[in-house]
């Protein structure tokens, strides 16, 4: 019965991404052994070229790992968790850490895909280490990953960690950062414009999304040209209820020689976080754009879910960034936009609503000033805001 079920799934899906190659079917929830996820990852790595790992369509439950799974090192390996109980749009396979310090899924190849799974209890749930063009999650509802109860939710890191796509991941309840892009993360896409392409990163202990150019032994490399698009950061999935992260909603930092530059942060809902809504901190944070975001309100832009500190906060020399256009920055507990300190130069705050609801009609004031420039920043501009 299981075998026929698998065939049905394959027919239905038809390997739409052309990555089927060899197909492996997980039929066991055991950590190791025949037809386990561990065994099939090993097999896929051993099989050159694209491979697909499916789950029996009646399989449901938790795979508790006692050690890390093998690294996805062969290019083109797909793991499609939604094939388990395909009628259920929610993940039916949970991958759980059986001990501390574990990584749920480590990707070091290219064009791999991990979707339709739930990860819990890991030090880092999913880590892309130097890999390119991998996809975590997918564009339809059933492709969603649920990443909860871990340390860090998703980590992108190291040289050549480029052009990866994070769609439809529900990252919440982790103790560290929800989504963490470290040095080397370049040109990745976090979220997207399709209905289920957005990620949710809420209720995590650290930052919701963290673009972190903190220098690292891997070298002076950068966090650049990433798209952070249409994500929900600090709110529930419907965008109507606060579910804040402990620290900043979206945090861009570059405290040393590596740069955090040219990232596009647009159309995100960033509210109810304990720290700032969006922070840009460091002299090498430059050329980033924050546009069309709602920062401090619900999704309709009508109700207050202010972030604990500033809506947008620039400090320690962040320069030449653009805040706006089209952003709504209201109801935050301190300032709408704060640009603080020498070197925070030539930033542009433009075409944003700061202190009102989305219609521009009602009071949703920030606690302190709408825009606050201080402590020696220079050549910044506030234009066309109301």
């Amino acid at each position, binding site marked *: 019965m299981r075998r026929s079920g698998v065939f049905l799934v394959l027919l239905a899906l038809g390997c739409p991404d052309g990555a089927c190659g060899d197909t492996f079917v997980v039929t066991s929830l055991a950590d190791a052994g025949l037809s386990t996820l561990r065994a099939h990852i090993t097999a896929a790595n051993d099989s050159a070229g694209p491979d697909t790992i499916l789950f029996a369509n009646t399989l449901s439950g938790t795979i508790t790992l006692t050690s890390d799974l093998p690294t996805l090192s062969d290019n083109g390996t797909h793991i499609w968790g939604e094939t388990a109980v395909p009628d259920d749009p929610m993940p039916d396979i949970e991958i759980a850490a059986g001990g501390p310090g574990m990584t749920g899924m480590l990707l070091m190849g290219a064009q791999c895909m991990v979707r339709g799974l739930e990860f819990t209890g890991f030090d880092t749930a999913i880590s892309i280490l130097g890999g390119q063009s991998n996809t975590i999650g997918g564009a339809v509802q059933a492709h969603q990953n649920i990443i909860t109860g871990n340390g860090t939710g998703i980590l992108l890191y190291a040289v050549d960690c480029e052009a990866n796509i994070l769609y439809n991941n529900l990252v919440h309840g982790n103790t560290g950062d929800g989504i963490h892009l470290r040095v080397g993360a370049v040109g990745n896409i976090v979220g997207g414009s399709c209905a289920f392409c957005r990620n949710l990163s809420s209720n995590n202990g650290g930052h919701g999304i963290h673009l972190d150019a903190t220098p690292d032994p891997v070298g002076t490399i950068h966090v650049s040209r990433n798209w952070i698009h249409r994500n929900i950061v600090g709110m529930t999935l419907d965008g109507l209820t606060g579910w804040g992260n402990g620290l900043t909603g979206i945090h861009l930092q570059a405290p040393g020689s590596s740069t955090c530059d040219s990232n596009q942060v647009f159309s995100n809902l960033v509210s109810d976080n304990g720290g700032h809504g969006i922070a840009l901190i460091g002299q090498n944070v430059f050329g980033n754009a924050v546009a069309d975001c709602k920062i401090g309100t619900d999704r309709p832009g009508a109700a207050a879910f202010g972030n604990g500190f500033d809506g947008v906060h620039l400090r320690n020399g962040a320069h030449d960034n653009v805040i706006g256009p089209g952003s709504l920055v209201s109801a935050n507990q301190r300032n709408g936009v704060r640009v603080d300190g020498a070197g925070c130069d030539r930033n542009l705050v433009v075409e944003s609503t700061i*202190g009102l609801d989305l219609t521009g009609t009602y009071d949703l004031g*920030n606690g*302190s000033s709408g825009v606050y420039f201080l*402590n020696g*920043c220079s050549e910044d501009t506030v*234009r066309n805001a*109301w």
Partner: protein
Amino acid sequence: MSANGGDGILLQDLGTDHHVVELNRVGTDATGRVDLDNGAAGEGGIFLDDGPQYCVVDGNLVAGHADAVPSGRYGIRLRNDNTMYNRLSNNVVGLDVDTAASLPNHYGVYFENCVFDTVGPGNVISGNTSYGILLAGSSHFVFGNRIGTDSAGLVAFGNQSGIYIEGAYCMIGGPAITDGNLVSGNDEWGIEMHNWTSFPSDILVQNNVVGETAAGGAMGNGSGGIWIGQDFQFNEIGDLSGATGNRIANNGYTSPSGGPGILVGEDDWPCELGNIIGSNSITANAGKGIELSLALAYPGNEAIPAPYVTSATTAAAQGTIDAAITAAVVQVFVDPADEGAEYMGNASFTSATDWEFVFTTPPVVGQYVTATVTGTFGTADQTSEFSTAVVVSPAGTDVAEGATGRPERLELTVEAPGSSSGETTIRFSTPVPMHVRLHLYDVTGRLVCRLREGVLPAGTTDIQWDGRDAAGHTVASGVYLLEAVHAEGRQVRKLTLVR
């Protein structure tokens, strides 16, 4: 940028420089028509505090921050010494986005202890419940703005007063015509200055229009045009060269006593002095064109006496000044009444006290000639009130015998008084019989006696004055004024009696 708990936009600290704040709506909804003000007590729209420099605040709508207590709120505020070299331009402060309705702040623009900042050009600062611009700092430039009107300068949206100055070394307007502000329609004064304690104040007011619309219609400020008040010294309203005069008209009509175009004086201390007022067009104000608060114990500009206009025709005017004034400049004006609507030029002196002005553009018969004198008097160089107005007569009304033996023109002359008796001959010549009222006044304007009132025949009539007043008492030596009022106007001659 509205409804926030603090200021709409706050720039703060030394080194916070070169910012641009432009095209924002601060304190309203997105339409720019509904009040959604920022801040609480003492906060407001845009605040540059403690050191921002070289910032540009341009094209913003800043409105709705109207609370007066416990401390007045503001549209735009600059504060403290290092806040300098900033420019505010093209903002609308206190009206809605169409400049069609009031959406007031308490203070429109408030400078407090900052220096070298600029307001202008192109701001519309109107409808605010307190002052349009409060300059409580020094060395600021305010030019090219509309203060108290809509953006077209045609509809009044008065502030309490247009510009209130508590600082020094400010320039209101400037040397070019386009530098001038339109300061009209405000509830109290167009421009007022008070409470400056570090003399001198050196405010320059140039090329402004105070009390008219942009189209030249009447839109006076309620209490008066310009008030140089408590402790303000050595200011200049216009100049003595004809280059930078202001237009000051139609003001003072809500003042019970009729407010003046320019008022100098406030304090019962000898403080409001050294103010030069020149080359302005001052007319149609409810009170005097220039008033030096002569009723105070210490009047403005130390009560420098106004000059006398002793004759005025379409060709020339003559007059005198008080001998105590030195280094004097007499400016001659023509007005429909008793102010100075049109500055005609500076007179030439024919003696230490006598002046003459030849018109290059003849005034119209029936208008009035007035004059001011600016010179050293008391402790400073300063300007008088306007003289008594003298009606313009046709040119050529000086006495000259014609072929008929009758004079061809009207003339009033005074023979030298007798040195001991005070007996004086006054000669009135007329080509036709004419009703004449001939009165003598002292220099304070008090009537001494009525010499003649009735029709005098054609020709020359000598009238004797015995040196006595109407009660028969011998009058003291001094200067007296002989006034002849007749069908062609009014003539005044000075009569010096030496016993």
